[in-house]
């Protein structure tokens, strides 16, 4: 169903320490619009396939003439599940993403050259990573679209001890958010449960603090009307707005945190927002 060529690779270019074996694909459009590449960052316990391919995002972006870079997060999709905790820390993931987009041809922004820089679309946990990536890479990132974003960090609040006890002997998990996230992590046989828990543990060591470093480039925040996790979206918009960045928000009627991803309105808004 790809309309253009695409290349895939197990990412081999290590930033530091062990090779996390991240699975990277570059999806070329049939007709290139001449704009900078778009990096897609999927959510927790999802994958490039589930979050971006099956939902129709890759073809939508390719049809808009965009070159798309996808990467499976460590322990997700076709990426490896490293044993060292360091490979799962948000800061290490951001460093790996920077190396990946550089290897895929993204170049620092240059005034008047629309092929330079990088656009980023993140979803859920991917939105958190995109927010931080934009905040730390102002010379590279042009615009960001955040789907299902939250100023809180449900993964950092995850009760790891209760989850491990539940997995060992079935003791019920009291915290509803923890129980829900664990169920999500167990649902996909393609995702390694040990790696999901390692990711959570690493995130607990580096919880999301949107005010600590906020992106200054234009942002589009999108959430379903029924997305409880994204009820804090206005807070994110306010933090970025105070830093002087242009912020747009879009609420999709009737949609939840899970099913906003296929929304036409979401895709069309993203393509338009990034098409400058």
């Amino acid at each position, binding site marked *: *169903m790809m309309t253009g060529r695409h290349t895939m690779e197990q990412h081999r270019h290590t930033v530091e320490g062990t090779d996390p074996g991240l699975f990277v694909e570059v999806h070329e459009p049939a007709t290139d619009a001449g704009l900078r590449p778009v990096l897609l960052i999927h959510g927790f316990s*999802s994958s490039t396939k*589930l*979050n971006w391919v*099956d*939902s*129709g995002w890759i*073809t939508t972006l390719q049809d808009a003439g965009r070159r798309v870079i996808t990467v499976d997060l460590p322990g997700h999709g076709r990426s490896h599940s490293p044993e060292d905790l360091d490979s799962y820390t948000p800061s290490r993931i951001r460093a790996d993403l920077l190396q990946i987009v550089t290897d895929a041809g993204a170049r620092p922004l240059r005034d008047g050259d629309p092929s330079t820089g990088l656009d980023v679309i993140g979803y859920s946990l991917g939105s958190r990573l995109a927010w931080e990536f934009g905040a730390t890479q102002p010379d590279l990132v042009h615009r960001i679209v955040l789907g299902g974003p939250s100023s809180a960090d449900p993964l950092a609040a995850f009760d790891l001890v209760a989850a491990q006890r539940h997995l060992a002997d079935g003791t019920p998990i009291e915290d509803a958010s923890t129980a829900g996230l664990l169920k999500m992590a167990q*649902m*996909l*046989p393609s995702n390694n449960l040990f790696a999901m828990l390692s990711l959570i543990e690493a995130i607990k060591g580096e919880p999301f603090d949107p005010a600590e470093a906020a992106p200054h480039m234009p942002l589009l925040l999108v959430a379903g009307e029924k997305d409880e996790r994204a009820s804090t979206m206005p807070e994110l918009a306010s933090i970025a707005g105070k830093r002087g960045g242009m912020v747009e928000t879009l609420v999709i009627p009737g*949609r939840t945190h*899970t*099913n*906003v*991803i*296929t*929304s*036409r309105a979401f895709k069309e808004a993203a393509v338009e927002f990034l098409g400058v």
Partner: protein
Amino acid sequence: MAEISFPLPDLGEGLIEATVLDWLVEPGQQVERNQPIVELETTKSALELPSPQAGKVVRIHGAPGDTINVGEPLIVFEVPDDTAGIVGTVPKDEAPKRRVRLSAVLDED
């Protein structure tokens, strides 16, 4: 003209049903093969289903919010008679493109 009905396909991962989020096509509309036709939600994710067939949409089953079981009718297409009966497109009977020139080999004798 003939009608071809397509059921909700096996979505893998042991899924037995899906909920319709939104139809992207409507009866009377001409669609291409692989064009997204419907947004569905399963217990694991939301996805777009590509059209298994080129043709005119006759009927769609399930309004937004309705649950459809794998194997139950999802969409019906109207197609020319000569393409009915098989899933997918059928190669047309076209004149062979390769021309073979028959030339007599003259007996030198």
